[in-house]
């Protein structure tokens, strides 16, 4: 399984609008696949964190047990 966190307003697009959930691992799955599969608009993603590291490569593949976080832009308030 892949543990996914969606932060900021990206949770709006997540299954049942949950901020944290798990999805089954599929060989060859990459970050872009994750976002597309979840229906999260790519232009709204400001930050991607994979196992605690900030990444920018949408082609990066994930592995079983990975923790992936997506965040929208963090504005004032």
């Amino acid at each position, binding site marked *: 399984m892949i543990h996914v966190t969606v932060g900021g307003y990206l949770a709006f697009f997540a299954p049942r609008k949950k901020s944290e959930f798990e999805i089954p691992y599929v060989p060859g799955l990459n970050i872009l696949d994750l976002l597309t599969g979840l229906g999260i608009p790519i232009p709204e993603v400001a*930050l991607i964190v994979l196992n605690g590291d900030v990444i920018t490569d949408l082609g990066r593949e994930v592995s079983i047990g990975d923790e992936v976080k997506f965040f*929208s832009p963090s504005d004032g308030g």
Partner: protein
Amino acid sequence: MFGSSLKVLRVNLTTGSIATETLTEELYRMYPGGKALAGYILLHELPAGIDPLSPENVLVCAAGLLTGAPVSTSTRYVVSAKSPLTLGFAQSEAGGFWGPELKMAGFEAVVITGKAEKPVYLSIKDGEAEIRSAEHLWGKTTADVEKMIRADLADDKVRVLQTGIAGENLVRYAGLTNDLRHFNGRGGLGAVFGSKNLRAIAVRGNGRYQQNAADPAALMDIGKALARRVKESPISWELQSHGTIGLVAAFQPNGMLPTRNFQEGLFEHWEEISWKGYEEKIFTHARSCYACAVKCKREVKVDGRVSEYGGPEYETVGAFGSNCGNGDITIVAKANELCNVYMLDTISCGMTISFAMECFERGLLTKEDTDGYDLRFGNTEAMLAMIEKIAKREGFGDILAEGSWRVARKIGMGAEDYSISCKRQELPMHEARGKFNVGIGYAISEIGADHLVVPHDGGFTKADSYQFKEAAKLGMSDPQPVTILSPEKMRHFYLMEQWISLENSIGFCFFGPSPRSYILVEEVMGSINTATGWNMSIEEAMRVGERATNMARLFNLREGFTREDDTLPKRIFTALPAGPLSETVIDYDEFQRSLSELYRLKGWDTETGVPTPLKLVELGLEWTNKTA
């Protein structure tokens, strides 16, 4: 005129005189309330160089053109004066219910001069006003004062705007509250109230905005559409679901959660103070401002009971959480409540305490200085004790009540480097090293470091994003990364600053209009024009915002501010020690070049930052050459 009574209530507390002035529609169209109207009044009536805690200070409480309209987030009013903290232009916005009630009572603004001989409060009702004794209110908590005023006036629907004990004691960052949970926090306006022996302004109005709208049906249609759309738009949905607390979880992985007086950007106990911890331990329900469907406010439990002061927003979570080394969200809620009981700005209070904590850990302060408290990061007992001492100006609190910038100069020995402030006002909880235009904004803002008058970089990095597409309607082009400075980045700043300044003039909350939130540009313009019958263009609206910012700039220039004051604390020009931003630096020389470019875009002298005569003519501000 539609959309405004054009009436300004004028109160002289020295003489006790009360009068009503009527503006012209022509004037109001240029200065349609809030920041714009306040700047106009202050430049005309407040002489330069006065002591902000003297009777000579002029206090303006101004609703905006749309305050009280049946449109979500159009709830804001501005309080303005010369700031006792920055010694420059003070402007603090708040939502809640007081601003709409003022409009319903038939006034656009209240202008207060002089000083009452003894404590008083002002009572306004449906076009009339009276000054009433507040001797029985002085020294009481904000909750008690609200109850007592409602009992005095035999009306539990009265809306009360008040300072607290901190304002009575002239704490330089004392704030104001209405309905106990909406705040004009920044700039020390609570101390201005206190210096005038003014404890509160109570308002009751029976008018309704729609009764004076040019096209009430069309305005209501906009309002209904926006109310329906809150749950359908991601940004407003997020604000309703989590308030602003979601920012903790967003900032931590990027290494930009202010930690231990901005020394670090990663906090080991971040999860405890994130929305997860907030929801588990303190959150009870969401709450709204007047006629607003966004419902971003949080209500919480403190010490096991529902607090009557509302819950902490992100700024308070940062200021009394990570920035003071505290990972206990229940203590953050307690600190928030204490600040609201006494009416202290949570940002400046938290940051002044974190400054003192750093000084203590570096050996610049000892227990002898701090009334015996081991004032280290993470010592929550000491942190909470300091809040009360500051409000009452007791012991070390009397020193901290002056704000970190002044205390730093009193301590010396390099303490100046640990006051993280711009123009003497402490930074809010947005790390400029991770958002470079926020840094520019902190530096150039006329009111000192403030996160609600500046554009936040993150929304303008991708041409296909919602925020960028909305900003394109205002003239933005060419997306830019977050952590760079460039001429195009300055253009982003120039455009967005005007739009935000417009919002702060016409009464929209930061959480309403796009690009920041969900009300489209054309819906903002539609609200203005259906309320007034005007045919205002986006261009004219942007000029309103730009005019307001230029007036605030001129105010500060009169007070002796120069380009040298448009800068950041030394710490913000150095990289964070760890995390993704550890190799990112705001380069000082590039910062100066960017500042000059921004001055150029604004039509200011590129060396001095003084608005040129041509810019003043363009904005209709030629009269500023002849002001007080």
